[in-house]
């Protein structure tokens, strides 16, 4: 990964601008840089531009980079380091180093300082990402720069942006795309509102923007949505339903609207740009190109040169089956010439023995004229074990009026089998979103 090359490209948050050309003669890691060569390095910094700077410098220099998500609990650092056989730590220069045992502890500091010796790039660095598991300790997923960048097509000089944090798979894809191509990149800033971010994207002339459907629903509700005029709008990380696809198309009629399927383990599998939810069944049947897909026990399995290598750690489960396929855990349903995503295998609500995927009910709620976003969850029940309950955020301009909740519920009962239709509905001002930009399903 060679950053720069005279295109005057930048990676910018609200508070900080990294010029990629500067890395030829400068470093964020100061005099510690040579001591990180060949190390297994835990990268735990709070700032996204610092993370970007350290990644630019550590690829090829370190044997392994463990990329910590922003929320990482520092008390878990020792266990994480042990599993990743880490012997070095890169942390924020402004705070004292966390208490954990490493051979090398280096501070990442911006602005850059002059490089004292040439930067060595002798390793095929392993990139390790902890997955945001819903239960238990995170799994450590190992990639290389080749598996991470396998899906890239040249895009030409443009300014890109993402709602994601670059320390998670979706955001890292965009960072690496910018670094390996000719694009500049604009990133969000902690504490920055969606409105303020959109204004900044507009001023920077950003043309290509990625985020989760939850991120994009916030844009749809923002008064600043017209500050941007994108060529390309990209969804990933959650199911993109017809309602959110159609709403974005109406808001940005000029833009190519694309939803991609990717996960930390399975890598980038495909992108669909026909404006409809799900994906053509022909993608599965035409397996044999650089991505092979199959549906086993209703879940999508993927094999490609972009899947992760393995899980790290002793006793870690296998990431691939015997034929090299990764089980995504995403349940799909065939409807005619299309596969639709039904939800996560583990996320099913059991209503008297009948299965309900919350995502399917959410898609039905989101299709209602008054609803922008929804969250469906189980309510415990002594008769059927559970019932379906929902919270909804109304569309911009829709005023909560008496009878609206009953009207939405009645539309669900007309569209869904009785056990899937919500029995309870509450209008809320906003829904909980995780740091990764996805709807928070627990709590």
């Amino acid at each position, binding site marked *: 990964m060679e950053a720069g090359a005279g295109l005057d490209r930048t990676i910018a948050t609200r508070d900080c601008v990294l010029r990629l050309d500067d890395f030829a003669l400068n470093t964020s890691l100061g005099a510690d840089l040579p001591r990180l060569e060949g190390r297994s390095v835990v990268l735990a910094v709070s700032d996204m531009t610092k993370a970007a700077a350290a990644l630019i410098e550590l690829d090829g220099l370190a044997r392994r980079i463990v990329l910590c998500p922003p929320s990482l609990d520092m008390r878990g650092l020792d266990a994480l380091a042990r599993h990743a056989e880490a012997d070095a730590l890169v942390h924020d220069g402004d705070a004292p180093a966390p208490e954990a045992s490493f051979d090398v502890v280096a501070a990442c500091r911006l602005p850059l300082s002059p490089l004292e010796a040439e930067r060595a790039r002798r390793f095929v660095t392993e990139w390790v990402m902890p997955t945001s598991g819903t239960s238990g300790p995170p799994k450590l997923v190992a990639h290389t720069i080749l598996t991470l960048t396998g899906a890239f097509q040249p895009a030409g000089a443009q300014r890109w942006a993402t709602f994601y944090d670059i320390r998670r798979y979706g955001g890292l894809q965009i960072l690496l795309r910018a670094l390996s191509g000719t694009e500049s990149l604009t990133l969000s800033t902690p504490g920055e509102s969606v409105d303020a971010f959109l204004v900044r994207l507009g001023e920077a002339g950003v043309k290509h923007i990625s985020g989760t459907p939850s991120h994009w629903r916030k844009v749809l509700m923002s008064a600043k949505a017209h500050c941007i005029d994108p060529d390309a709008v990209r969804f990933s990380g959650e199911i993109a339903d017809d309602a959110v696809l159609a709403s974005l198309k109406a808001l940005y009629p000029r833009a190519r609207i694309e939803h991609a399927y990717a996960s930390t383990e399975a890598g980038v599998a495909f992108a669909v740009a026909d404006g409809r939810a799900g994906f053509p069944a022909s993608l599965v049947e035409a397996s044999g190109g650089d991505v092979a897909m199959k549906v086993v026990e209703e879940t999508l399995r993927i094999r490609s040169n972009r899947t992760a290598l393995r899980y790290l750690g002793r006793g870690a489960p296998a990431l691939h089956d015997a034929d090299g396929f990764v089980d995504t855990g995403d349940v799909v349903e065939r409807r005619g010439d299309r596969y639709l995503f039904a939800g996560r295998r583990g996320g099913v609500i059991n209503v008297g023995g009948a299965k309900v995927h919350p995502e399917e009910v959410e898609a039905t709620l989101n299709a209602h004229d008054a609803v922008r976003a929804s969250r469906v969850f189980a309510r415990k029940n002594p008769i059927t074990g559970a019932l379906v309950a929902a919270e909804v955020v109304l569309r911009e301009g829709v005023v909560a009026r008496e009878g609206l909740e009953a009207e939405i519920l009645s539309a669900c009962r007309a569209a869904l089998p009785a*056990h899937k239709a919500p029995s309870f509905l509450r209008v809320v001002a906003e829904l909980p979103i995780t740091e990764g930009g996805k709807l928070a399903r627990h709590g």
Partner: protein
Amino acid sequence: MSARLTILDAIRDVAAEQGKTLAPLSDDLPLMESGLDSLCFAILVARLEDALGADPFTTSETTRFPNTIGELIAFYDEARV
């Protein structure tokens, strides 16, 4: 005050929402013949928990569950004493 009116209203609401035809409601009408299915009962019990603040199906220590409309009303009245 008895929960009778709240319960009868809730039964009618749930039946209407779920498109069920109710038998004429009387105290000796067996619940199984009322026209409500188990999903309707599940919704009814949850609604009554919200309306009355009681869920005797979860909290009651008796092993004998109500069989008729009259017993259902008594079940809730006992739970709310």
